[in-house]
Every structure is written in structure tokens, then in C-alpha cells.
């Protein structure tokens, strides 16, 4: 079957969705996706970020479709023509969805641990507006303890339900899902239940925003201060192929490996994710590369950098030395707060 997306033609198998076809083409025409996750069945259709304009249905049915469609759940037809990035209508719709998402998920990023890994941040970079039109009170939720490994920060959830699909498809004895309706919808567990299934950690990886975070890593470091390496170990529960995030010689976090669409390549077990934090637990394969403009590349060490010498008066650069030290965090004691008292990690988490 032939489909044309933003003027680029591609041959696809029957059953391919428009989003998959766009990903095969790659580049700018690939619609953003906040709820679809190719590795999980039944995802997609919910966030409405991936709307595209089907300008021609198929050769047999040349009528323009009356509606924008969600590309992640709409199958290609032979001869279909789709406008994605090129369509004004599409841009408008995606801008609208972004504005809606930002109503209750403010980009006050310093309070969130997902900074640098947040798909919503990327989405709003492309589709956000400068001014906020929403002046009402935002929806807030009481913090809730859902288990030993995962921190739920409901105020940031965008109800994409990817984590619910993880719970459905990867774990047994599911205890978590969506409660309530509308903008009161919330991710929660059955009364008093904790999520402790061996594969539950994957919820953290699929969460597109900072609503589910890793309690063993939370606030240890900004992700761009970490250096990601591909690593593996012999694991009897999962593939054992991960990315380990190092700060100096310390493994601060372990995640599954993610592809260019921020989807995990293979799901991993909780043992690999939470319990194996010694360098000796892993065979380190080498540095992991990220997209050129990813914030994680702020700490790029895969590219050779020439030392930059700034020739200017000393006075102008005053303070810069000190800032550098702070940013490098080399001399910072993580167990101590600014006032000298020790950090109570439970309270901070």
C-alpha cells in the first residue's frame, strides 16, 4: 500500500498505522505521541497529540476525511494522503492539545525529577504558547504512597494510561489503575495496596512526564549530570540489557534502554532496576548516545570538545569559576543540606 505523508510517499504493509508509517519516513513529519507506546498493546488514541489531517482517504474513496484523526490508531489505506507538520489545521489542533495538557501539568520544572526526560516539555517547546490563558486554580492531589520503589506525583500525571497498560500486560496481580472521571481522574492503587510486582518499575520508564519516578534515584541528580552507559548482566528474569546512569564511579540509576521515540527497547525487571547499583554487577558496554539536541547531551562526553578559552577581563567572569564548581557538583556533599543538617531522604522523596 502506498501512503503519502507531507508529500513523501512510502510503501507499507496493510495494518500499518499512519504514525508507524510516519516513523518509517522519519524526520519532521513524525507526529508527537504522548500516550501511544509501540511496545504496549492497546495504547494510543487518548492524548490526541498525534492528530493528522487525512486529506484523501484512498483511491477508491477519494473524499477528504471530515475529521482530523489520531494517527496512532488510524490505519493507512492505499493511496491515502496525509498532512502532518505541513497542515495548519494539524498545528492548531496540536497547539490546542498542548495548551490543554499544560492546564494541569505546569512546566514549573524545577520541582519535577523528570526534567530533561519529559516528553511534555518537548511537546510544549514545539507547540506551546508563551502566555497562559488558564487563570483558574489548578487541580491538586494529596500525595499518595503506592509502594517502596515508585513515587507517584499525581499533580503531574497526564492520564496517558501507559502505566496502566504496563500493569495490565507485564505484571500479575494488578493493583493499580485509573480512579474517578474527567480532570479528577487519577492514577491510584486499590485501597492500601502497594505496587511491588517484579516488573512494576517499567511504569516509570513509560511515564512520559514526571508523574512516576524512581524512589531510589529521585533527586539524587539531574539527569544531565549523569553519564548514561549501556550495560548488561546475566538476569534470570529479564533481558538484563539496561542503561546505567553514572555519577563519577557511582551508578545512581538503572533504566531500560530507550529508542529515539523514548520508548524502551526491552522491558527490565525490578532487580536489575533497583537492586543492582554496584559497578561490579554490570558489564559496561560503552557510552549511550542521545539525540543531538537532547538536554542529556549537555553533558556530552561522546564528542571531543576543544577547550574554550575566553579572552576577556577577569572582572566580567567573576563568579563563573564558582558556578562551574557548583554545576560540576564535584564538591557537593549530597547528604547535607545548605544549612548543614543531614537530608532526610524519606521526607525529600
Amino acid at each position: 500500500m502506498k501512503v503519502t505523508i507531507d508529500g513523501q510517499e512510502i510503501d507499507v504493509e496493510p495494518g500499518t498505522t499512519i504514525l508507524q508509517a510516519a516513523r518509517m519516513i522519519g524526520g519532521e513529519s513524525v507526529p508527537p505521541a504522548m500516550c501511544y507506546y509501540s511496545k504496549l498493546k492497546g495504547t494510543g488514541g487518548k492524548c490526541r497529540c498525534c492528530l493528522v489531517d487525512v486529506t484523501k482517504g484512498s483511491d477508491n474513496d477519494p473524499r477528504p476525511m471530515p475529521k482530523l484523526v489520531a494517527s496512532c490508531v488510524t490505519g493507512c489505506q492505499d493511496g491515502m494522503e496525509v498532512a502532518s507538520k505541513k497542515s495548519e489545521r494539524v498545528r492548531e489542533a496540536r497547539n490546542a492539545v498542548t495548551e490543554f495538557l499544560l492546564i494541569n501539568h505546569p512546566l514549573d520544572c524545577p520541582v519535577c525529577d523528570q526534567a530533561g526526560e519529559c516528553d511534555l516539555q518537548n511537546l510544549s517547546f514545539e507547540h506551546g504558547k508563551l502566555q497562559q490563558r488558564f487563570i483558574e486554580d489548578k487541580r491538586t492531589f494529596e500525595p499518595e504512597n503506592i509502594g517502596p520503589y515508585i513515587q507517584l506525583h499525581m499533580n503531574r500525571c497526564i492520564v496517558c494510561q501507559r502505566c496502566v497498560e504496563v500493569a495490565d500486560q507485564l505484571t500479575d496481580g494488578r493493583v493499580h489503575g485509573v480512579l474517578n472521571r474527567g480532570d479528577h481522574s487519577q492514577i491510584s492503587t486499590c485501597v492500601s495496596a502497594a505496587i511491588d510486582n517484579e516488573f512494576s518499575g517499567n511504569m516509570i520508564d513509560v511515564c512520559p512526564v514526571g508523574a512516576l519516578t524512581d524512589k531510589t534515584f529521585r533527586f539524587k541528580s539531574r539527569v544531565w549530570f549523569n553519564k548514561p552507559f549501556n550495560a548488561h548482566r546475566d538476569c534470570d528474569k529479564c533481558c538484563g540489557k539496561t542503561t546505567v546512569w553514572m555519577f563519577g564511579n557511582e551508578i545512581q540509576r538503572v533504566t531500560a534502554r530507550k529508542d529515539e521515540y523514548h520508548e524502551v527497547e526491552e522491558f527490565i525487571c525490578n532487580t536489575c532496576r533497583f537492586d543492582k547499583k554496584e559497578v561490579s554487577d554490570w558489564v559496561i558496554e560503552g557510552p549511550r548516545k542521545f539525540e543531538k539536541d537532547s538536554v542529556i547531551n549537555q553533558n556530552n562526553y561522546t564528542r571531543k570538545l576543544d577547550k574554550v578559552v575566553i579572552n576577556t577581563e577577569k572582572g566580567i567572569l567573576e563568579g563563573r569559576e564558582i558556578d562551574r564548581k557548583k554545576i560540576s557538583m564535584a564538591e557537593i556533599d549530597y547528604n547535607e543540606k545548605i544549612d548543614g543538617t543531614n537530608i532526610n531522604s524519606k521526607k525529600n522523596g
Partner: protein
Amino acid sequence: MGRKILLDKINVPGIKTYEVYRKEGGYASVEKALKKMTPDEVVEEVKTSGLRGRGGAGFPAGMKWSFIDKKSGKPRHLVCNADESEPGTFKDRYLMEYIPHLLIEGMITSSYALGANLSYIYIRGEYMWVYKILEKAIAEAKTAGWLGKNILGSGYDLELYVQIGGGAYICGEETALIESLEGNRGNPRIKPPFPAVQGLWQNPTVVNNVETIAAVPWIVNNSGADYAAIGIGRSTGTKLISASGNIKNQGVFEIDLGLSVYEFMNSDEYCGGMQTNRPLKALVPGGSSVPILPANLIYKTANGEDRLMTYESLSDGGFATGSMLGSGGFIVYDDRACIVRNTWNFARFYHHESCGQCTPCREGTGWLEKVLWRIENGQGREEDIDLLWSIQSKIEGNTICPLGDAASWPVAAAIRHFRDEFEYHVRFPEKIKNRDHFVAEPFEKVKHLVAKQTV
């Protein structure tokens, strides 16, 4: 006098019971269908009748039935949508409460037509007493041999169950209803696949409204052609209208489609005119989700023709000058009604009922409600009216199911036709803060203030 098809026997004493219903000719359609007709012939009659779905969308029932996948070899199901959660619509409850066997009879005949051996009536949780009535009727029908194995010795088997929902508007949307029936959270499914191909338990399923199914016995007993002779054009047959608001006679009426809105409003047989003879201000003709019409577009369409109670005439001119027949929830407002308050009230409902799956509806309905609340409470800003317009336009058409549209149309129509009233709210917050505004002093009397300000 309009003819009665559904409500013909409603005043017969004891019609609720099986004995009386049967004595009055009940279950004849089952006998006729099972003994003298093939399932396809029943489908054909319904097609000929032109009967359109009475749940709101008005999709031709016979056509929907013919889409059901009979080749797959999978079991098929008929599901009756008795969720009836649209504000302003209360007709299905009336039918089920007063003549329950009509629905059961319709379910059997229709299930036979579809080749369904397991059918359901899905009823909203708040209709508990109606649920009990239906349970009793089903038990009576079963005892009398109209349900179960080998009905009337025809070789056809049918089990029929009533299932109560949790009382959520979204569970009236057909795919959410199916999810709920399966025991899941009532979230709409993404279509395609349509229920006719993959519905309940992945089996081919037809979902029809109570009133649609209740019309089938008459069609089978008389003929599709006789049914099609009633009404006008593609709006055939009779329709139940639940009328409420500032009219003399509130209640459920059966009309021939094609009756003029003027006659329906003013004749003693139906609404009986305005309560306390106050002027008519606005009308919602088809339940809370359809656009509101201002007085000048109620009796006449934009090009001066008489407005009729038909799918076509009520939607004449699209949303700019028309509305929809919808589910027939006819809500009448006199000059004391506050359109902003009413719109806020509807928005509050849609916000509360959005399932929360998709972004525009989940976030947009809440936003609409909040802005409308502010305007209605004297805290509106001038730019809020355009903001409302913009929000609703960003919900419409971008959602998984039509609840998003249902939330945005009433807001769009209210602004389109009653913008000056919104402006009055914004410019005279002090007058608005009295929650009884317009009751003592209808908007007509203060309208000039907005006009003056605009100049």
C-alpha cells in the same frame, strides 16, 4: 390527534402485567416473526420503515442491523441502551416503567432478526425501580415461554438479561456501555472497529435505544411501509418527546414526526403553551447536548419556513441557525431564564461526566465550567467570552467520542445567539451577583445597557 404507536396502550389498566399486555395483543410480533418470517425479512421490514435510532444520532436502524457481521460465525448480541442520561430526556424511563413488556417484546423480535441468542438491557443505576419492573417482566415473559430455549417451537433460543450501570452519562455512549457491560471502567473505545464487527466480548453487537427497539413490534405487526407512511421524508414514524421547562404541560408525548414546532408547543394536546403566558426566550429541542435556539429561530427556520419536529428541519442551516432533534429532550425557557447560568449548568454536567480518557475533553470541559462559573458569578472578564469560544472550538472534533462535541455545542450556540447576555454579565457584575438576576427583571429590559456600552 396524533396517532399513538408506542403509547397506544399506556393507559390500559394493568398493562404493566403480562396478562393484560398479552390480552391487548402483546407479543404478536414475536409470533409473527418466529413463525412466518425469516430473520432477514424482519431486517428488511425495519429497513423499509426508515426507523432511525432514537438515542440521539438518528442513524437508520435497519442499516445498522444489516452491518452486523453474520459471516464471522461468532455469537451475536443485541444490547438495549437504557442508560438515558441526557439531561432533559426522560422518555425511555416512561416507556419501561409503564409498558415494560413492549420493550421485552421488541428485544425478542429484534434479537431474532439479528440472530442474537444472548441479549442485554443496560439500564442506568439510578433507575433502580425500573430495573425491578423489567426483571419482573422478563421473568413473566420467560414463564410464558417467550424466552429461553426453542421459543414457540421455532428452534430459536434467546436469553435476556438486565444489567444496571453505575449511573454515568458516558456509559450511554455505545462503546463505553459495552465496556461497562463487560465489567470494565466505562471508557469509550476507539472506533473502528465498530460494535457491529467487534462489540460485546469482541462479538458482533448492535446497540439500540429503548425507543428504537420498542418501535419494532409495530413495524413487524403492521409493515415497514405503514411505518414509513407516518412522518415526513427521512423522518419517519412517531417519536417520543420529553418536554420540560416553562410550559403548561410537562411530560412525555408521542408525536408524528413532521408536526410543527409551533403546534407541539402550543396545542393543548402537547405542551399547552407557555406557563403563566410569559414570552418564549429559547429552546433546546433535543436534550442538553444539542445547540440552543433563540426565540426567532424556534418556529421558523432562517429562510422563513415553518420549523418542524423532524431531524432535517430542526437542523436546518447547520449549527448557525439550527439545532438537532437529538434524543427528543425538549427544554423550554421563558424570558426569565438566564442563558449563562443554564450554559454553566450544562457545562458543569459535562465536566463531571467526562470519562477523562482524552485530553481535550478531560481538560477542556473543566476549563469551560470554570470560566462560565466566573462569568455567572460576576467575576467575568471581557476576554472570557472569546476565551470560551476558543476553548469549545478546540474540544469539538478532536476527541475520542462525541461527549466532547456535546460539551462544546451548547456553549458555542449560547455565545452565538446570546452573546449580549454574556456581555451584560461581564459588564454589570454587581447586578449579576444577585443569583436571582433576570427573574424579577428579564434580560430584555436591561439589554439596552449592553447596547449603549458597545457604542
